[in-house]
């Protein structure tokens, strides 16, 4: 199956045209990990190719090789069939390869036009930046992608969706022939995603070759013409999207059948563990009150900005509330810091894994034992053997994939980083675990694993709060759902009320019938 990397002979399922950009037999090794072994990828003009794979399959590495950030250890890069190399990112840009990343680095204090042309601004007399030409070009680019943004505004005045459009305009500001889109819809709303699809269609019509990376199958089938599947750094298959089904792709991705169904649970709530009343903050949220019982999964749904994460972080002791009470097992507690929260058995798995969840430059075992060090030693001295034992116990429970427990967390894929964060908190033997968007940016295989694990934990009597913006996840996992809107509880739903439309109506504040 892996032996199909002969020279590119046009075959039935290949467009007759030559690939604008191709990788052949590419290998890339990092210390302890073979990120890519002998993979190939062809990007044809006027064609959208979806790159599919679990986190850790090698997608990001391929993007970095295509954009000249990494150098392959072996194999060739072909531009219009001619072997070349991208020793520096500028070389890739020079060949018309551009990328729109998940989180593009933009500069808040600069204008929209300056952001778009940073590093390659049009020059006028004496090599100075020709601001007039730059603004005009920026306006043309923004018009081209249907964005109603004034190029002279400062970036910080724009909303998140418009910032994303600026990032797209920036990517298109070089004369691009190949456009790489790395999970471009992750931060966008439904309407903005539709607009992005139109943009992709436009780019396709202009004859650009597009590499589209996504975890969402609906958009892959909507937008892509061809697919390439990676697993564990190997090329598993490629071809025309019309020839495959979603199930085929999932099977190629994970190498096994994965039930898209959520784990079946028989909820058996016990005593009340956590009771929150009148919980308020001057600006972020107000009058939050609810109870949580052992063995229960309580979902928190709401639109972005509804104050869910802010409330959870306050409950975890990051910010102080202005009013309200918290009881654990019927006894009032005053949580002034995360350390207090952990001592009282409340732990929080944040949405922002890289900054808040894990310490990326420390080894896996040190991340896992960090909150448990006091319990492990008692006298304040480290006990390395006990640390490895604890880390091993919880990484095995979560089926972590890593070269060694001494590996830095930053070297792991998103799904495995999330497992480290969850392992860290389970090792403290908490009463209540708060999971903030637990499967965001996590591939489908790890996603199901996280869901199964949540169900298992609930069955063992842990009380779980899950903040999620994915309706299927909220409905599939929660016993009860609290919907938040503008910092307040809009509704608490259970049983037959748990319905997608009901959730959306409460979250958006639409009264009456479905809109």
């Amino acid at each position, binding site marked *: 199956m892996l032996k199909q990397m002969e020279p590119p002979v046009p075959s039935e399922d290949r467009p007759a045209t030559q690939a604008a950009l191709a990788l052949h037999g590419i290998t890339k090794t990092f210390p*302890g990990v073979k990120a890519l072994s002998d993979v190939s990828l062809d990007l044809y003009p006027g064609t959208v190719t979806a790159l599919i794979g679990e986190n850790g399959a090698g997608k990001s590495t391929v993007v970095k090789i295509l954009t000249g950030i990494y150098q392959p250890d072996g194999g060739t890069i072909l531009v219009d069939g001619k072997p070349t190399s991208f020793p520096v990112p500028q070389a890739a840009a020079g060949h018309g390869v551009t990328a729109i990343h998940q989180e593009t680095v933009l500069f808040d204090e600069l204008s929209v036009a300056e952001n778009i042309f940073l590093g390659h601004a049009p020059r006028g007399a004496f090599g100075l930046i020709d601001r007039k030409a730059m603004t005009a070009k920026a306006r043309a680019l923004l018009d081209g992608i249907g964005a109603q943004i004034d190029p002279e505004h400062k970036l910080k005045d724009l909303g998140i969706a418009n910032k994303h459009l600026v990032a797209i305009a920036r990517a298109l500001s070089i004369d691009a022939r190949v456009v790489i889109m790395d999970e471009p819809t992750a931060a966008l709303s439904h309407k903005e995603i539709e607009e992005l699809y139109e943009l992709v269609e436009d780019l396709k019509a202009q004859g650009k070759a597009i590499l589209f990376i996504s975890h969402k199958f609906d958009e892959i089938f909507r937008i892509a013409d061809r697919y390439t599947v990676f697993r564990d750094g190997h090329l598993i298959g490629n071809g025309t999207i019309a020839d495959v089904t979603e199930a085929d792709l999932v099977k190629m991705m994970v190498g096994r059948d994965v039930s898209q169904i959520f784990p079946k649970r028989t909820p058996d709530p016990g005593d009340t563990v956590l009771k929150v009343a009148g919980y308020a903050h001057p600006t972020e949220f107000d009058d939050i009150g609810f109870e949580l019982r052992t063995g229960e999964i309580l979902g928190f749904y709401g639109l972005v900005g509804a104050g869910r994460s802010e409330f959870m972080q306050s409950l975890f002791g990051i910010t102080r509330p202005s009013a309200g009470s918290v009881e654990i097992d019927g006894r009032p507690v005053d949580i002034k810091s995360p350390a207090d929260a952990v001592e009282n058995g409340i732990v929080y798995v944040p949405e922002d894994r890289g900054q808040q969840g894990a*310490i*990326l430059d*420390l080894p896996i*075992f*040190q991340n896992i034992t960090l909150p448990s*060090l006091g319990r492990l030693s008692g006298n*304040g001295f*480290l006990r390395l053997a006990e640390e490895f034992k604890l880390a091993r116990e919880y990484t095995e429970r979560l089926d972590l994939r890593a070269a060694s427990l001494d590996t830095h967390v930053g070297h792991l894929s998103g799904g495995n980083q999330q497992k480290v964060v969850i392992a860290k908190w389970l090792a403290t033997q908490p009463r209540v675990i708060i999971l903030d968007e637990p499967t965001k940016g996590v591939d489908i295989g790890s996603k199901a694993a996280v869901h199964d694990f949540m169900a298992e934990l609930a069955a063992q009597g842990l009380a779980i709060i899950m903040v999620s913006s994915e309706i299927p996840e909220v409905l599939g996992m929660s016993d009860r759902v609290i919907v938040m809107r503008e910092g307040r509880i809009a509704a608490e739903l259970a049983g037959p009320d748990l319905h997608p439309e009901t959730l959306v109506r409460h979250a958006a504040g639409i009264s009456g019938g479905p809109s």
Partner: protein
Amino acid sequence: MSATDRMIPDRLRSPLEQRLKSWETLLLAVAIAIFVANSFASPYFLNAWNLSDATFNFTEKAMIAFAMALLIISGEIDLSVASIIALASTAMGAAVQIGVGTPGLLLIGLSVGLLCGAFNGVLVTRFGLPSIVVTIGTMSLFRGISFIVLGDQSYKGYPASFSWFGQGYVWWVISFEFVLFAIIALLYGVLLHKTNFGRAVYAIGNNPTGALFSGIRVQRIKFILFLLTGLMSGIAAICLTARLGSTRPSIATGWELEVVTMVVLGGVSILGGSGTIVGVVIAAFVMGLVTFGLGLLNVPGIVMSIVIGALLIGVIALPRLWSMGRSR
């Protein structure tokens, strides 16, 4: 789904292998090279008493450097250490004038150090001010007080029993200061590398937000680190004052940068998050040997600071040039 049969190893490289490839090994090689070069350059170098004298070039600074190493690893810095020495020394000198004895002087030196450290610590951890700004301010403030009290005068008349802390020998050529340096090095080595506290210091330096979200009491630990740096400055003030036998407001001028140089030369990242006490110990010897060797050759002081500066840049640039050369 479960794959408990696939064991993840604890480590891929043994701790010994990691140590051999470390910064500290490189630095030790540099130290040995300087030692050998010195013994060829001057016939007076390989003399027990001369070598013993050489240790005074670094013992006091190194005591502060150990605490500073922890502070820098945690992502903070204290540039007021030399000014704390001036203030503590001034306080002890003033106490001598009203007849305070040696135990009282020691107590005053340590207390002033702790108080100054606490002042820095409160400003940084309570009010959230950047430590580099706070300690540049207190650097002027603390020494400024010394200047107001002393003007162009100096305090003298320290009791003989006090002088022992800077001039005394424990056994043969082994000075009290050197023994104190060794004990403090050991204590800080254990604190940083063998305790939960030390692990938290690394975690904070790598990612303060992540450490906070992991239940680490970040501000409390930083406050303790400022206290420790103040305390070590107080101890250094005692040793230095006892050795010199007098206090002027200009005492220990410029030491803050020498201390930071020692820490960085020892392989502590100025950005925080990594470094070892062993590295700082070797860096202390390197700086002491260079200064002493050049002194024997009658090289003027200004040339010495040029050599130390070049050494710092050279030793830091070398590994980077090496890895750049290999990746080509």
